[in-house]
């Protein structure tokens, strides 16, 4: 494996860890964007240019901003007095460790059957576009409906209650 991969993997995992461990919620959100950026670079390293740029545009440009907005609107940047972890943190940690153990065991156990290095696939944006409107046209339409529904739903959920009662 290349040197670039190790750097990117370390960056991504460090960003993820920091996002889950830091005390200040805004710092967590900023660490999350580091993890997102690392993932986008990993996508680019996997020759998935379009997905990598879409990842940056959607996650860093929209989701991260939404998260920091929500944090500031809920006064979440003030660190709570009684710790940032839940009362049942030990159980959660054990479950996560168990999941990682199972996943890691499955991956390591199947190393021999996994495919090796293959030729770099060349994918143009034109191919992606053609695939979107031919083979994947139904999912595309469903995603469009889902996004519309989610937008309307999010607006209604976040609207002021008082205005509805008047």
């Amino acid at each position, binding site marked *: 494996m290349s040197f670039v991969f190790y750097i990117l993997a370390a960056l991504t995992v460090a960003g993820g860890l920091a996002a889950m461990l830091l005390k200040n919620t805004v710092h967590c959100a900023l660490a999350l964007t580091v993890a997102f950026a690392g993932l986008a670079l990993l996508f680019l390293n996997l020759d998935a240019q379009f997905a990598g740029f879409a990842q940056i545009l959607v996650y860093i440009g929209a989701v991260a901003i939404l998260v920091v907005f929500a944090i500031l609107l809920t006064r979440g940047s003030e660190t709570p007095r009684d710790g940032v*972890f839940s009362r049942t943190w030990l159980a959660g940690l054990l479950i996560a460790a168990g999941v990682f153990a199972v996943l890691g065991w499955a991956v390591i156990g199947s190393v021999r059957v996994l495919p090796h290095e293959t030729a770099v696939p060349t994918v143009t944006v034109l191919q992606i576009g053609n695939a979107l409107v031919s083979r994947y046209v139904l999912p595309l339409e469903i995603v469009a409906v889902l996004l519309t529904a989610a937008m309307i739903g999010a607006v209604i959920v*976040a609207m002021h209650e008082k205005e509805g009662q008047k």
Partner: protein
Amino acid sequence: MTPLASYLLVAALLFSIGLAGALTRRNAILVLIGIELMLNAANLNLIAFWRYGPHPELLTGMMFAIFSIAVAAAEAAVGLGLVIQIHRHAKTTDLDAMNRMKG
């Protein structure tokens, strides 16, 4: 270690970190962040399988990841809208304090 296996291990690690965070943090927004991390780890898996799989020209894994990115954006918007509404109602985002079903 094949390249695919190392990508899968990184994705598994990221997924577990996200899961651990979602299960242990008190703040509802951080739980959502954990869920986002888990979704992203799944995307990494999809792209890695697309790259090293038998038929990359069919674009299956990549399309799956692109659709998953779109769906995750919708999920984040609705989730954060819910958190804001809960905060307005209960004046807190601490999940341990939300132990009543009655408003």
